[in-house]
């Protein structure tokens, strides 16, 4: 046992484990391929189990507002409390749940972005030093990812709708930044501002900031595709996946580029600039004026 632990600490151990795992998968896969119907049956069982998991998660987290059949609910006066989820698609579920907007905690003008509920929190940290803790975290994360996938699948099965975009479609490196900038300024900046720092809407609603900690490229794509809350929908036939990738490329580059002129002052434009001019500029110069015009220090004089 001791020797094994020592091995595990070798620099090559990680690669070895990965290789071994790959080999094992290959063997298992090879073992399954000839008996394809058995595998299919197993897959089907697995899929049914996943769907059931999705249904249970739905009932636990979403059903109370959106109704047991995801048909939406209304209050006594017929005013909708929660919209129907039929046809919203996996993309919508993924956006709402992975950004923590759903399940909603309390009704307000707008559902804020927050930490996802533990069942779906795929952002938990796993870089613990202690192996047990790390293992547990990794397991939890994997479970959260599976939960999210199952829930997506469940809603998708109920009424169809836009699917989660593949990773290649949201890769910022693949987009045309120039086109993305033009499209962003024409269709997005009016709410989210030039640099994606957000802005005010009516009735206490707001366009959220699009900073690195706020939203991932996949979530940006999903938001455009599904139009969460007050945001309009930009479907794939209006803004093609290529256009969306361009917008993502523009946004990611913008938020990652440094401020060459110094502190960005929140990148919100002339309001913070004017404030800085008065507080820092005039403030420092008034202090200087007070110093210059203050009485001469007395101790210097020969008395």
């Amino acid at each position, binding site marked *: 046992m001791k020797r094994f632990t020592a091995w595990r600490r070798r620099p090559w151990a990680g690669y070895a484990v990965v290789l071994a795992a790959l080999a094992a998968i290959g063997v298992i896969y090879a073992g399954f391929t000839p008996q394809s119907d058995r595998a299919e049956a197993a897959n089907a069982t697995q899929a049914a189990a996943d769907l059931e998991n999705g249904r249970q998660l739905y009932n636990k987290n979403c059903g109370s507002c959106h109704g047991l059949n995801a048909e939406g609910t209304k209050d006594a006066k017929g005013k909708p409390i929660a919209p129907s989820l039929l046809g919203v698609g996996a993309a919508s579920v993924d956006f709402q749940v992975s950004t923590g907007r759903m399940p909603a905690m309390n009704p307000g003008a707008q559902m804020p972005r927050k930490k996802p509920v533990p069942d779906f929190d795929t952002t938990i940290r796993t870089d613990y030093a202690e192996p047990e803790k790390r293992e547990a975290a990794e397991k939890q994360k994997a479970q959260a990812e599976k939960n999210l996938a199952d829930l997506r699948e469940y809603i998708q099965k109920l009424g169809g709708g836009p699917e989660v975009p593949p990773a290649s479609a949201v890769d910022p490196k693949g987009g045309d930044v120039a*086109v993305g900038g*033009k*499209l962003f300024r*024409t*269709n997005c900046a*009016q*709410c989210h501002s030039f640099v994606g720092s957000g*802005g005010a*809407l*009516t*009735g206490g*609603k707001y*366009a959220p900031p699009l900073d690195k900690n706020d939203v991932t490229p996949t979530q940006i794509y999903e938001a455009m595709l599904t*139009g969460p*809350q*007050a*945001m*309009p*929908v*930009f*479907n794939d*036939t*209006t*803004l*093609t996946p290529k*256009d969306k990738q361009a917008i993502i490329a523009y946004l990611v580059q913008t938020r990652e*580029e*440094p*401020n*060459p*002129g*110094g502190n960005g002052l929140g990148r919100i434009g002339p309001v913070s600039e004017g404030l800085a001019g008065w507080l820092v500029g005039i403030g420092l110069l008034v202090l*200087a004026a*007070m*110093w*210059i*015009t*203050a*009485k*001469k*220090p*007395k*101790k*210097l*004089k*020969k008395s």
Partner: protein
Amino acid sequence: MSDNNETAGPVNEPREDGPVRKVGTPSPAEDNTLLAQEEYPAPAGAGEELDEREAKRAERIVASFFLLAFAASVAFIVYFIGWSGRDGGMHGIHRAKESNLWLGGMMALAFLAMAIGVTIWVRRLMTSKPIVQERHALEADTGTRRAFTEAFLEGAEDSGITKRPLLRRTLLLAAAPLGLAPLVLLRDLGPLPEKKLRHTYWGEAVKAAKAKGRRGVRLVVDGTNKPLKVSDFASPGGMITVLPEGIEENAHHVMNEVAKAVTILINVPADQFKPAKGRENWHVNGIVAYSKICTHVGCPAALYEQTTHHILCPCHQSTFDATDAAKVVFGPAARPLPQLPLGVEDGYLIATGDFPEPIGPSFWERG
């Protein structure tokens, strides 16, 4: 600065070094000489004597600030010549950042160090004493004024301008048109408004399309020029900025035409859409197009909220209702956004005519 602690503050604090006098002080606002000049009999600026040890210390401090300023300006030049130009000069955002930080930082340091040095010098080493000066009366005495008036009138008399009204009047007459000439010269600053503000490129494009036997002009996405099919834009809650097809290639002044023709296309859920009277067939299943130019002062009004169907202008927050012919709901705009008549041809969304009224801000002749 250590010497700042006890001395900073406005100088209208009591001057402790002021002389003590025995009389009640009359208001300085009254016109009397308050200050006894004999208190400063020395010639103006005669030096105070300094404590030589303190002065030496101050001198060293000032000198070190000047040296710091020297070092900073040298660093500025050295950075510029020796480092900022490496690999073929400054290119791109990272080098711009570096260069801004170095050049700006060194410049600020040089100026501030010099400023601090001079200030300490003034405060600690300059020995001039405060002095008093008379404020002289500004106005001339009556004699001078009278003398001037007399001279002036005499001159006028001598010149004959008072005696000969014909000369005076014809001179004025001659000058008047000359004064107007520069105004006339400004006429060609620009063309007359005519009807330019009443039409947009949509009208022109529809006319051209009809000449080719089509019913209207297609709507293309601003930025990608993709023509839109009805089926492309079928998602309720959708919004996109569109232009008439061909505007970039065919319009005479593209920017000017885009500034008038830019339009937002919105897919309002058909069950919530209330078409205005006489415009029942201007929409396609709730797909509706409004001018993007706000009727207040012309910003692009484009914040479409798909929950409330409000269109908000980000400049001055005029708010329009997309379901109700873009009626004004809030804010300083007085008129709804003009609506573009839409139709379908070969599955594509088309505009079947120009905006029925001038787009954008109001103007006097608009009516």
